[in-house]
């Protein structure tokens, strides 16, 4: 009887350490949620967007998945630092967001740092700059050609 009890106790201990066969769950609140939408007069959520979450300094993703029907995606960071969330809609349009996670594993509420008008202004300025350089190269080549003839 004593031996049987010992055997059951040992088996219980072994089984509790081999927990992989028994799946449990708990419902938790919290985590960090990122929302993505298309800007416009009436903003629309980016549904089913492809998401990759990178922990600070990591190149292999910590988590990947899809946004829900409201354009939301949640994850639970396991360390503080600058986390990177890359989301796109499969057509190459999307965002790369840096999320600063503090020691309590929370992040401040932030919005996109660049509004569309600022992106447009930046891009147009860079294009004009590049074509300005191309004009200079063309004139320089022309002058060089004239000097030879």
């Amino acid at each position, binding site marked *: 009887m004593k031996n049987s009890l010992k055997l059951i106790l040992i088996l219980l201990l072994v089984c509790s350490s081999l927990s992989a066969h028994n799946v449990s769950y708990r419902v938790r609140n919290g985590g960090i949620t990122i929302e993505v939408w298309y800007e416009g007069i009436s903003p629309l959520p980016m549904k089913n967007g*492809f998401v990759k979450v990178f922990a600070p300094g990591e190149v292999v993703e910590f988590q990947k998945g899809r946004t829900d029907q409201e354009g939301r995606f949640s994850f639970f960071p396991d360390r503080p630092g600058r986390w990177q969330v890359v989301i796109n809609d499969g*057509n190459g*349009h999307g965002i790369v967001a840096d999320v600063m996670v503090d020691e309590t594993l929370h992040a401040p509420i932030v919005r996109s740092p660049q509004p569309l008008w600022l992106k447009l202004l930046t*891009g147009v300025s*860079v294009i*004009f700059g590049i074509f300005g350089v191309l004009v200079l190269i063309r004139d320089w080549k022309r002058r060089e050609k004239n000097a030879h003839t």
Partner: protein
Amino acid sequence: MHIPDGFLSPQTCIVTYGISIPLIYKSFREVIKEESVARLGLLSALSFVVMMINIPIPGGSSGHALGASLIAIFFGPWRATAALSIVLAIQALLFGDGGITAYGANVLSMAVVPAFVGYWIWKVFKKWEKLSYFVAGYFSLVTSALAAAIFLSIQPLLFSSGGRPLYFPYGPAITFPAMLVPALIFFGPIEGILNLAILSFLKKRNEERS
């Protein structure tokens, strides 16, 4: 229509870079010869703006016009390729629109293909001026979507491990309708109307001046 990082295999990226770099080089040599580089810069900026304005479509995805055929009709397909290559590089490097590793594929699908297709179609229909502007824009955008769909849909066919796709997961049966239907119904007509409006306006202005 921009292909993001992680959707194409390294082999596809290397091949598409290998094809696009000589084309970009040739296109830049053409730009240097161009008298009106500044005007080309203006149309490139316009193309950048129309590409940055994403129009959401039902199903959660989005798309935009290109402006490739517009530049090709004005300055020829090589200069349009150079202009679009610059625009795509800025979008990939500064705004994360389209991947850096997928830049070669994006140059082929969003610069080379629409510029040349748009230009040739415009040449064919040139007799009917307004129609030629519209169809050039329409087909340049549709063929651009087709090229992107080809790059993406071959990924699961060529690069899978134990039946599990390593990169872009959807084959031709899903990718082609997903990319071509919006292009045929929404974005092709938008590109055509954009071409028609801008080219007609610029032509009218030129006629008034001369």
